[in-house]
């Protein structure tokens, strides 16, 4: 296991590790000792760009931390498409969902990786993170909608898949129903997200809004309502675009205990009024 490589240190180090890992068979395991926070900084609903390390003030449980890295739109993404293919997503809805998946895969850059997790009552992990986006697209084209909805179990699996490699994990969840088949509870899934660097963006055409909103809040992501499944492609692509405009801020916690809940407070020093979105905290893991 390349535990050291997953410490987010200078960008060069991270990119080097990423390159090394690219030659290995990827696994679904990942671990960071550093804390990474994806931060969206906007002013009048437009992303604020060009901020440096000095612009960010990060407190962990109230203790000021030394920000070690701020990157913007540079580190490759680990996009995990997590898509509801239960019986309620049939007919033209499924066609729209496939089109949306194809569209967002086209928008990925060569260094990005993607994986597909589909779910009805059965969660299907269609392989590991890959740069072969056509393979992911093909997998999506073969999915047939059926069954009930195991949204919670699927998001858990997607988080694990998304963390399997260096890069910024983005879990894009689409669901149009309410969970009716998962083993995990909402509380358990939220605990999973609090131990994860992944950002969850939820898209719902109907239903599931409460859970997806909570997941978005817990990870600093967002939830959007697609007015129609015809809008899915636009919504997916806009989410990816928004995510690319986030800053990746990292720090190695100092002055705080390693375990338990850590509240993260991010302030940005920038001209004018800015709005900052970031995950509210994380669960420290036993060492």
């Amino acid at each position, binding site marked *: 296991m390349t535990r050291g490589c997953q410490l987010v240190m200078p960008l060069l180090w991270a990119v080097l590790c990423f390159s090394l890992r690219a030659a290995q068979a990827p696994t679904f395991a990942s671990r960071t000792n550093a804390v990474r926070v994806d931060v969206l900084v906007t002013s009048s609903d437009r992303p604020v760009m060009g901020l440096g390390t000095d612009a960010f003030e990060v407190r962990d449980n109230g203790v000021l931390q030394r920000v070690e890295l701020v990157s913007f739109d540079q580190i490759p993404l680990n996009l995990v498409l997590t898509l509801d293919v239960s019986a309620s997503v049939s007919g033209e809805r499924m066609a729209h969902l496939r089109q949306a998946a194809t569209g967002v895969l086209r928008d990925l850059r060569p260094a990005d990786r993607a994986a597909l997790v589909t779910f009805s*009552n059965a969660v299907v992990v269609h392989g590991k993170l890959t740069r072969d986006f056509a393979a992911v697209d093909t997998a999506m084209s073969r999915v047939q909608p*059926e069954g009930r909805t195991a949204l919670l*179990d699927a998001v858990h*699996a997607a988080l*694990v*898949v998304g963390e399997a490699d260096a890069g910024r994990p983005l879990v894009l969840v689409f669901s149009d129903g309410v969970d009716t088949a998962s083993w*995990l509870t909402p509380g358990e899934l939220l605990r999973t997200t609090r131990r994860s660097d992944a950002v969850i963006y939820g898209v719902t*055409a109907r239903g599931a809004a409460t859970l997806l909103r909570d997941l978005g809040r817990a990870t600093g992501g967002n939830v959007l309502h697609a007015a*129609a499944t*015809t809008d899915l492609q636009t919504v997916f692509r806009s989410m990816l675009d928004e995510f690319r405009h986030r800053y990746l801020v990292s720090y190695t916690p100092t002055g705080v205990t390693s375990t338990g809940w850590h509240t993260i407070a991010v302030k940005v020093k920038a001209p004018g009024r800015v709005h900052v979105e970031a995950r509210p905290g994380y669960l420290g893991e036993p060492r």
Partner: protein
Amino acid sequence: MRVARGDEPIADLDPAEMTLLVDDAPRPIVSLIYSPVVVASNGRADPSRRDVVAGATRTGTPPARRVVLVVDRESLNASETGQLQTRAERFVAQLPGNVRIAVATLPLGSTLRFESDRSALLAALRTAFEGSARQGAGLEGIAGFGCIDEAASAGCGTQGIHPAIRAPEARAMNTPAEWLVRGKRTLTDLQWLFRTLAGGPPSDIVIMSGALPYQSALRVEIDRTLAMARTADVRVHAVELANIGRVSLPEGGPESPPPLSLDSLHELNDAAYGLPVETGGVQALGTVSGAAFFEQLAHELSSTYLLSFEPTDTDRDGRPHRIEIRSSRRPPLTIQARKTFIAYPSSPATPRTHSAPGEAPPPEAPLTTTSLTSRRPLSRTDAWVALARSHQAGARDRELIDVAQWNSGDLRNALNGLTALGRRVPTDTLNDALLRGALLHADVALLAPDLALQFQGFPEWGALHTVEATDGQAFGVSVVSAHWHLARALLDRVQPRPDEDPRVLRWYRGVGGTLLANRQFAAALPHLDDARRLFPRDRDINALCGLLHEALADAASQELPGDAKAAVGTSHSELRASRQYLSRAVETDPHDDEAQLHLGRVCHLLGDDEAAVAAVSSVMSRTRDARKRYIGELLTGAIHQATGRLDSARESFERAAGLYPMAQAPLVALSYIAREAGDRSESARYIEQLAALPPPAALERDDPWWHYQSAAVADHASVLETLRAELRDRSTQ
């Protein structure tokens, strides 16, 4: 059916040159009657009118025809319907005297009345139009109008909406709730109309509207309406007035954005626009005057034949069957006819107790209606008892269809007469009739939901609404069938006391289990309340109550919109109620494994892991059933996990995975607790195992966890079928 060559009606068809196919198989034609409803277009006499006067008795006597003109007053504006009204009045004036005509409005204003006085009819038509006042801004013809769930219908997405109108703007002009309520009322009124006309002479219904309902949220009502149109011998014609021109568009936008095309509406399964298609009627969309529509309708009605055949026993299954009619004449003729029919099982011994509203007389020779064998006058109670005795429990037979169409007056009379019946017959006979009646009405609610809503209960009962949902997502609101209430009211009359009759208990248990298996929770709540009133200490009734409230605590029930789950408590309160009932069940019978397992889960979710352990352990100590052991291991693992004993939890989940290696829940649970323990590699390893499972369609990819609730009610639900079988056996003895 209409037969023509181009615009020329064909009046001399012979049955010998016709072929009738039912579900692709040839069938004998019993009669073919030329029965035109002649219309003189443009005020001139129609040359084929003489055929009607002469009787057109080539192969039979034409029966009376009926035409109902329907004005949808809430989707039309009086100020905009001048031309349509003129065309409609001209149409009425030109109908021959042997055609019986009625004017109806949507919403329905009064009882359907067939007038022979043409001047009175024209006055009624004028009144109907003058009273029209469109609700909303008239955007029904374009997408965005009234869309609760845009994604559910192509007509509700941005596709089909003119680019000059943004979907949010369109939506803002009419509230979804208004549209939904109006659409539902329109469909309910149309259903009433079809029921009223069913069984009488063939009828043509002409709907003049600004928009027919089309929306997935109304899917259930639309399906019911289509089903009723198939069973009634009616043809529906629809003309929809263009209203898009009145939408004020932004500067620079085109003046006439197109409404949804008829083709696109036909493609929508959720559209009432299928009515003319299903019944072989005429349809026009986006018209201003209706001129072309009425002209086409005139052609249609001037070349109408009635073709009849006798459905076989195989046809009489209450399901739609395809009809195709061909002619051997050359050059080929255009034949337009209904596409399906529905027939029900006949029961010669059963006296018919038709009670349709309006003036619908018994059928003379309808296409698929069987003739009556007895017209002996019976009291409502006697007739009801006869139906209950003849009904084949569990079948959607003619008795079921018949009683489903009784109105509240008939049913109240039948109920009121039971007291007198009890004085005339032995107690066993009365009780037998009551039990059969309860099964009959349960079958109406279960097997004929499309008809069951005709009886909406007695005023003192009130109405109970239910949310219709799929995959946890609500898509409509309906009314719980009053036949459930009626069935229970019947059993309350069992002598000497209903709670002393084991068959009553089995009925409550079987029906309760069936309702839970069908996830008909709104119907199950009052049912099990009554069951508990009668059998407060019964193990099965208490277990069913516990299972119901456990299900109501789940996300699928808790996530319903606020108004929709008025009868559902919070998740915590539902779990507490569940625990109370499950505890009573296991107090009565500690060996009720299903109740113990569910009690264990409920206690765990309530945070009482000590009680949870006791309940689950009691099952694990004695059962060798793999499924029960699997559920027990999962629950044990969850309890260990909650109390921080992750190693013990892992062992339990691994045992569960050993019992069902293809099951998903243990792998997810193991991945989760590995992550909780800080071992992400281990967590990932279990997800890799999950990724290696067979595809969802594979038979071996099964997880008993997915059937956790349905498995628990299966035994209870089977009691209903056993009870039905017993009654069927006794009927044949």
